[in-house]
């Protein structure tokens, strides 16, 4: 069963790549389409050159490391913030309804429109990017947690109350584990949000002394180095897949699956 799935996944990826290569090799989308659909070979070469040559004499590694640091910082703060706010929301109906309003409003605001305010408050440094990552993660993550907490079956909350759980102990002892499948779902969304938030933040706001992957992509875009840009996306994908199958899936297996809370 599991082996079948892995084979299916590999076949699927190969099919996608084959389609790409077919479009590229046959110039299906216009005579100059190899600029936009470079062949897989070119992308692989670009992949290597990203790491050996890099941009401005700096290997892509450095960009990736810089970005991952900011990403993690934003992600952790965003997740913790979401937990704290959602936790507070369980304490009172009024807090919950204010918090709901807060999410509904702030989640709509494009980060770029907040930039002037952020720059004035935080100055010009990597905190701005961290802030924008937090802004991308905090609201959808809070939404998942809050909705997860709301959907916790009443009987678990009552069983918790019954053995004296209140406030923090109730959140940690009941709300948290009982809504774990929401939390994991939120974590997956939050993780993707963080990446996209990071890259767009680094695109509108690049610090040359701490250059990130978004700046790199922007650079490759500016220079029309599409092969290098796709190769950079592949790096993002690889990191994403590692996190998905190396971190999130095992967590899932050891919680929701093990506890019979998910099929």
């Amino acid at each position, binding site marked *: 069963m599991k082996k079948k799935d892995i084979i299916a996944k590999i076949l699927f990826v190969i099919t996608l790549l084959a389609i790409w290569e077919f479009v590229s090799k046959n110039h299906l989308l216009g005579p100059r389409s190899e600029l936009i659909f470079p062949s897989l070979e070119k992308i692989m070469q670009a992949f290597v050159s990203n790491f050996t040559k890099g941009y401005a004499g700096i290997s892509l590694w450095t960009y990736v490391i810089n970005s991952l640091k900011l990403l993690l910082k934003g992600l952790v703060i965003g997740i913790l913030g979401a937990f704290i706010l959602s936790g507070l929301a369980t304490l009172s109906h009024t807090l919950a309804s204010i918090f709901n309003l807060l999410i509904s409003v702030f989640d709509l605001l494009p980060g770029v429109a907040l930039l002037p305010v952020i720059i004035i408050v935080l100055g010009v440094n990597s905190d701005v990017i961290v802030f924008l990552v937090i802004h991308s993660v905090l609201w959808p993550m809070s939404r998942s947690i809050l909705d997860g907490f709301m959907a916790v*079956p009443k*009987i*678990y909350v*009552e*069983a918790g*109350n*019954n*053995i*004296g*759980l209140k406030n923090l*102990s109730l959140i940690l*002892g*009941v709300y948290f*584990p*009982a809504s*774990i499948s929401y939390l994991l779902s939120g974590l997956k969304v939050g993780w993707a949000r963080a990446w996209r938030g990071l890259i767009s933040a680094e695109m509108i706001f690049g610090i040359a002394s701490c250059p990130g992957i978004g700046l790199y992509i922007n650079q490759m875009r500016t220079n029309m180095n599409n092969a290098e840009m796709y190769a950079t996306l592949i790096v993002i994908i690889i990191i994403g897949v590692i996190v998905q199958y190396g971190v999130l899936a095992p967590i899932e297996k050891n*919680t929701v699956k*093990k*506890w*019979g*809370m998910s099929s």
Partner: protein
Amino acid sequence: MSEYSLRIESLSKAYFNDTESSIILKNINLSVRKNEFLCILGPSGCGKTTLLRCIAGFEEHTGQIYVNDSLCTVPGMDRIMVFQDFNQLFPWKTVLQNILFPLKRKGINSTAERKEIAREALSKVKLSDYESYYPHQLSGGMKQRVAIAKALALKPDIILMDEPFAALDAMTRRELQNEMLTISQEESSTIIFVTHNIQEALILGTRNIVLQKGGEIILDEENSLTKPVTPNSEGYGAAWQRLRDAIYLSC
């Protein structure tokens, strides 16, 4: 301190839907003495569970509920409830952990002591072999037994049990009935026990009440049969008939 561990004064409870409100419990007055074993009988849907939930502190209501003479409005560890629902165990904890956790909350700090208490309770419900199972791996009756074990291990002032033995086979049921009798004799716990089984009420209860549809107590009598009660005990037949008539009348 008074002799009552539980006093309910003019308790009423209604559920409000969009348009109408339905009155479930109507002006209940009930005082339960320390160490009393109170069985509640009544037709399906008459409000037994609702009454237990009010006592446990889960429901808003009018009227007052006093536990050991102090007004009670929120849930607490002095009143442990065994729910009617099969899914009351925390699915993220094993059978053993489901019992250990409340013991820790109760303030028993030694892990060894907690484990001993929990294992003893599990052996009483004959689930020693299943301590590392997760709830979803248990049968219906087994889940209920874990919940019972949890309540027994905690030794609260008041145990609220909502049809705890309904899903058990005759033999296990008999054994657990004996266990409850022992507890009610040896410990100081007050037990409030919902059952549909008249025989069970007569075997266990020191006092039986019948709730009628509409939420009033239609019968409230001491169980004067001498323990252990069997169908051959003196007065059994008459008592059985009284309860049965009250239930039939109450529908």
